[in-house]
């Protein structure tokens, strides 16, 4: 039984982590493509249209990856988490079915038109199809976050005698206080990823001294979008989410902030330190007193319950992983604001395109927003442990009763091998597209 739970969790964690590499770029990049297309409609400068079409190519490869790694996610609810599906399907089935109905149909219907239909439709309609693809991909985010919000903070349900969760109030699923902050935070994070991708391709062109006209455009656009989104990511949306965790999941809050003992006169904020689970303390700690209380409650000496206030069964089962995920996300987020602000300053002083060190930095930062996005999700998901539905249904109670650990290990190994191949293909094809560049080739 322990084994079954372990492999089910590992397989879900692996497949969702790999999957989420792609949608985060899809969602953010669709916004930037719509922006380029809109600029072209406004000023009729060919450069913007070529930029939109170039990123459309990258988007298309990315979208395929997102689709083929996404179908296994929906299937796995049933294959590996059958008990969870049986008990809660009447509720989260709503939001997941709506995702198919309202977002996937929209996205897929208009994507082919957007990619192939520019000459058929004319510019205005082409812009419109691009906008609809953007709308579809963000709607998908909305329904997934609504599903997750219900698992983090269940609302609008009733539990029957046989343990089944029954929907009581449909609109509560969407007015869930967890949903809006989480959605905004997630979408902004995807804009950060795509801003970095755009800026980093721009830096690459300038450093390689080719396609410089586009290099400059991409850098400028990426930096402006990147700075705005990374600031909004921290404040207000990051702050808002942290307050939600403190309010609805206080045990997780203590664990992710690394508070082992409750401090009477206000909690400190931990910047660095490694959780020592044997001695129940942080090793090598650097912390600033009282800041956490102030950030969370705007009171310097407000008491925040530490992990000592909770029973072991209520605390997340992997506290160090949760703590690191959260701190990596926050640390990277801070670095993003710094780099983007510095780049904007250089841009304003007209020194950016010649500052090699900064250009190299921007280029090589590109994996880090992905890491931040994924550790952010780890924070949410590890923080919800040991529950699937917070406070109500334990993760161990949700697995498929009939699927043995040997079978799950077999399929996990298959997914690992297949996804390695997919990852390799993705890099080769995106690399090829970037190498060709946005400038239209003369035949």
């Amino acid at each position, binding site marked *: 039984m322990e084994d079954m739970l372990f492999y089910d969790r590992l397989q879900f964690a692996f497949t969702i982590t790999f999957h989420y590499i792609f949608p985060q770029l899809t969602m953010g990049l669709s916004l930037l493509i719509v922006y380029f297309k809109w600029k072209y409609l406004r000023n009729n400068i060919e450069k913007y249209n070529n930029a939109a079409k170039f990123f459309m190519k990258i988007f298309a490869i990315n979208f395929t990856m997102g689709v083929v790694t996404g179908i296994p996610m929906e299937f796995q609810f049933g294959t590996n988490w059958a008990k969870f599906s049986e008990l809660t*399907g009447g509720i989260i089935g709503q939001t997941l079915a709506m995702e198919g*109905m309202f977002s996937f149909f929209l996205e897929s219907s208009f994507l082919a*038109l957007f990619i192939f239909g520019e000459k058929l439709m004319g510019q205005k309609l082409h812009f419109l199809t691009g906008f609809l693809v953007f709308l579809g991909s963000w709607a998908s985010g909305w329904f997934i976050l609504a599903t997750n919000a219900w698992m983090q903070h269940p609302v609008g349900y009733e539990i029957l005698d046989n343990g089944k969760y029954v929907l009581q109030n449909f609109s509560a699923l969407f007015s869930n206080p967890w949903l809006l902050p989480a959605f905004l935070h997630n979408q902004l994070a995807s804009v950060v990823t795509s801003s970095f991708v755009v800026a980093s391709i721009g830096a690459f062109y300038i450093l390689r001294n080719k396609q410089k006209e586009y290099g400059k455009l991409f850098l400028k656009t990426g930096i402006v979008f990147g700075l705005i989104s990374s600031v909004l990511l921290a404040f207000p949306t990051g702050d808002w989410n942290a307050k939600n965790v403190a309010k609805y999941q206080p045990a997780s809050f203590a664990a992710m902030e690394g508070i082992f003992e409750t401090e009477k006169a206000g909690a400190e904020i931990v910047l660095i330190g490694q959780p020592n689970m044997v001695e129940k303390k942080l090793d090598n700690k650097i912390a600033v007193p009282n800041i956490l209380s102030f950030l969370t409650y705007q009171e310097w000496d407000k008491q925040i319950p530490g992990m000592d206030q909770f029973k072991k069964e209520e605390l997340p089962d992997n506290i160090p992983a949760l703590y690191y995920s959260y701190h990596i996300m926050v640390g990277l987020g801070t670095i993003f604001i710094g780099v983007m602000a510095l780049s904007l300053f250089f841009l304003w002083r007209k020194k950016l395109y010649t500052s090699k060190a900064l250009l190299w930095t921007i280029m090589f930062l590109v994996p880090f927003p992905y890491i931040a996005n994924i550790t952010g999700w780890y924070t949410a998901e590890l923080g919800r442990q040991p529950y699937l539905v917070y406070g109500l249904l334990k993760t161990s109670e949700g697995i498929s009763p009939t699927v043995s650990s040997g079978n799950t290990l077999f399929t996990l190994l298959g997914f690992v091998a297949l996804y390695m191949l997919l990852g390799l293909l993705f890099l080769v094809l995106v690399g090829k597209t970037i190498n060709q560049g946005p400038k239209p080739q003369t035949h």
Partner: protein
Amino acid sequence: MEIFWYIIIAVVLAVFFILDGYDFGTGIIHLFFTKKEKDKEVIAKSAGLFWDSNEVWLVAAGGMLFMAFPTFYASVFSGFYLPLIIVLWLIIFRAIGLEFRSQFKYQMWKDIWDKSFGVSSLLLALFFGIALGNIVRGVNLGGVENGISVYEGHYFFLPLWDSSFSPLSENPGVIDWFTIIIGLISVVTLAIHGANWIILKTNSSINNKLKGIIFKLNIVLTVLTFFSLIVWQIVNPNSLDNFIEKPYLIIFPIIYFIGLIGLFFIKKIKKDIYGFVLSTLLIVGGITSSLASLFPVILPSINKVNEPLTIYNTSASEYGLSVALNWGIIGFILLFVYMIIQKRLMGGKIDKMDYGH
């Protein structure tokens, strides 16, 4: 309300098999009957442009099944664990084959992805047929051994096969001689459907030859159909009860046979769309007849201990189903609008269209 959702999901699934069915079939034809690179390219394109919007129907059907019949979803997806995950892998291979074949000009690159597309299309058609075979045959619900359930009565787990390969054994696997027959019917049906799609959508040089192929495949299909009808009675003796009780259900098998008979005249048919309509009738008739023979059961039990799964003992709450019907109607209206727009802009033959690049 259960019946509403049962019908909606059946329709969505049927649409999935009509739409993704033609691109599975295109893959099968592509694998066996194309020689020239120009044909390969345009035929792959006739599937490649549409596969992802077609597969959304599968995702939608999955989502609706999850929402409306969560117990069925949980039971079937965990019970058919291995075949479903293998289907997922095949879907991935097929999709990347279609999407990536034209990314490089090297012949070897194209050949690899063409095979990937063709072989996984073939296996998917086979597996989906086998899945239907499993549904009509039923499974050992509760994993009963010696009269005692090993699991809760609505759960089961099927091995890929058991050593007898017989549908009549106590604990039959996913693959047995009965499900293989249904699987072959599915392969042949979808190959015909795919060939009709290629004729409809392209000007490939094999279009005329394909009509002859459809004719021959249709002979095979007729033989398989009659054979399956006989063994169907052995595997599931109650399968005619519904048709005797409610004679109007006979319309579904009639739809199937109209398609089957009509396709013998494929060489005389002038308008390409009619061939495609006839193979669509095959798919619709086949799926609906199978479902109608079971209704209201959706997964028969082959033991006497546990009750079969029906639309009533696996459904979500009344409130959930009715609220979902509200958004479902809005969703379907929107979908209809998208389809009209798409049809207007992307109708006609692929190779004549100027998609630019």
